[in-house]
């Protein structure tokens, strides 16, 4: 005891985040990404369309997970930014003559700007009231856009074929894969959806590994304590809200580029853009980055094989949401993680003994 306290420590420690498994998986992930980029050269058009859907739902799920799972902002109003992004795409391409891909990026920026005053209003609500309050705000967005006659008012409008067929790079894709314009358009939206899904995943992961991510995790675990150690919780939450709104706006713009038809009721639909997204996150595991990935696969399979049953399918989804919350609130990934200590996207900081060459005493 005495000798140990007298001599300086003989080992050094460092903080580590990566695990051997995560480094190996990063390599696999990179290969997967390359494969997915090259996929249109072999895949049927149906598969490309289905995967686009999977990717943008995954991107939306990552956004909502960051908001609710980490910042504690359980929003039922994210359809506000999906619809806003979609309408901005239509406005920027039809009236601004912008290229659709550029319009997606710009729609994200504008959605982020809109999120600042919106956030200042909805942040008046605490906890559970925030959920319904954000829903009211999304309804305000829907009703306001239904008033804009230039964008079709309450019935909506279609994207002129000249816009959707004039997307950058379409001629190159047409000759590269030897396809007609509609298929080439699908391939470009597929790549954009893949980029957004991978991009949101990367943004969320890097954010959570950063200092701000540490602050977010602290807020998630115990808000009052986080504040007591000097975290400005309101500013951190607002920053996350704005970031998520910008990403959600970009995803919304992409979704409505693919759909090529927009109406207030579909663009601001709570079921499509919030309820399904919440379900994906909760089934997969809220508060983990892997959860939405698992959740979106389950959701896609349910949708693909059961959606024909209409109302019964939706009743089943509602029952699944209830069952997961009651019996496995951590979701599929959360339960696996608890049992096997898995982490494909580790954000936890661990103390490791560093190799020290020679004795420093």
């Amino acid at each position, binding site marked *: 005891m005495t000798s140990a306290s007298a001599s300086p420590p003989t080992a050094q420690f460092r903080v580590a985040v990566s695990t051997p498994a995560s480094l190996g998986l990063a390599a696999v992930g990179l290969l997967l990404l390359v494969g997915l980029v090259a996929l249109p050269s072999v895949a049927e058009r149906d598969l490309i369309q289905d995967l686009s859907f999977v990717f943008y739902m995954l991107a939306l799920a990552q956004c909502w997970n960051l908001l609710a799972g980490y910042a504690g902002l359980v929003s039922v109003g994210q359809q506000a930014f999906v619809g806003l992004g979609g309408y901005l795409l239509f406005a920027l391409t039809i009236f601004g003559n912008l290229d659709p891909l550029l319009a997606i990026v710009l729609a994200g920026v504008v959605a982020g700007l809109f999120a600042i005053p919106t956030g200042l209003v909805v942040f008046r609500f605490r906890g*559970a009231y925030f959920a319904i309050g954000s829903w009211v705000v999304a309804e305000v967005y829907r009703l306001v856009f239904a008033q804009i006659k230039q964008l079709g008012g309450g019935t909506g409008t279609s994207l002129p074929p000249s816009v959707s067929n004039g997307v950058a790079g379409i001629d190159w894709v047409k000759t590269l894969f030897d396809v007609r314009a509609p298929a080439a358009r699908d391939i470009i939206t597929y790549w954009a959806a893949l980029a957004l899904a991978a991009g949101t995943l990367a943004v969320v992961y890097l954010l959570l590994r950063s200092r701000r991510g540490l602050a977010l995790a602290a807020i998630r675990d115990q808000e009052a304590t986080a504040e007591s150690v000097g975290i400005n919780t309101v500013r951190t939450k607002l920053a996350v809200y704005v970031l998520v709104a910008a990403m959600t706006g970009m995803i919304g713009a992409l979704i409505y580029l693919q759909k090529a038809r927009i109406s207030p009721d579909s663009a601001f639909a709570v079921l499509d853009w919030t309820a399904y997204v919440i379900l994906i996150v*909760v089934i997969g595991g809220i508060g983990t980055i892997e959860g939405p990935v698992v959740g979106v696969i389950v959701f896609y399979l349910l949708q693909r094989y059961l959606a024909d049953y209409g109302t019964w399918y939706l009743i089943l989804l509602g029952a699944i949401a209830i069952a997961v919350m009651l019996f496995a609130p951590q979701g599929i990934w959360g339960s696996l993680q608890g049992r096997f200590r898995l982490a494909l996207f580790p954000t936890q900081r661990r103390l490791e003994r560093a190799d020290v060459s020679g004795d420093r005493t």
Partner: protein
Amino acid sequence: MAGLLDTIIQGILLGGLYALFAAGLSLIFGIMRLVNLAHGDLIVLAAFAILALGSGLGLDPLLATLLALPVMFLIGFGLQQILLNRTLGHGLLPPLLVTFGLSIIIQNGLLQGFTADSQRLQAGAIETASINLGGGVAVGLIPLLTFASAVIVIIGLNVLFYRTALGRAFRATSDDLATAELMGIDHHRTFALAMGIAMIVVTIAGLYLGMRANFDPTIGPARLLYAFEAVIIGGLGSFWGTLAGGVIIGLAQTIGANIDPEWQILAGHLAFLFVLVLRPRGLFPRALD
């Protein structure tokens, strides 16, 4: 002038309907801090229950409501006892998600059972009856009955809350759950009774929803938002505040609709956000959230 007066009176009376939507939500909010996202769908469910009982047994909607009341009470009691009590005390997400799931199940269950067709509760002669107030202003009997029912429901809830043993248990669990438990209150049963009573109010709201206008299985979420707005404007835990909140939403909607019919709902939401920005805790808050 008569036009403006008419608008204001219609707005206040519409506020009575929104107060009925909101009173049950206010009770549940106040006692167990449960935000029930299925509240609007439960109102619609009650309207369909009245419709089914009325047409099935050949009854007047008012008589059918008397039969629907105990049924809905039991549904509320069971829902709380079996499902919702399990979601409390584990943070924000479980109650929100479970009631959201419930909302989807009720909506689609009703779609399955009753199709998407618009329905109406046929009440016979009183549907079109009106009372002339003079000066070119007349009020319909049903809107008047709606408002009167809202006032009676709120008086009833206040008596229950402040004058009865059950009300004392409600207030005790609301203020300090742990201490209430020590005093021998079974809070699960108390919550289940509260939800049952909220469903009685919901059934009355369903009756007037169905008599005043057409309804279909999908209109629940919008009613939830109006109810929520009335509760927040009024201030948490104040039943009279909820009535005032309902009247403010009703007035804003009626005035908005008078300017342009498409602005009705938007005007209500904007009035709500305006009040919220000025008075975040509502006009007459009783309890701290």
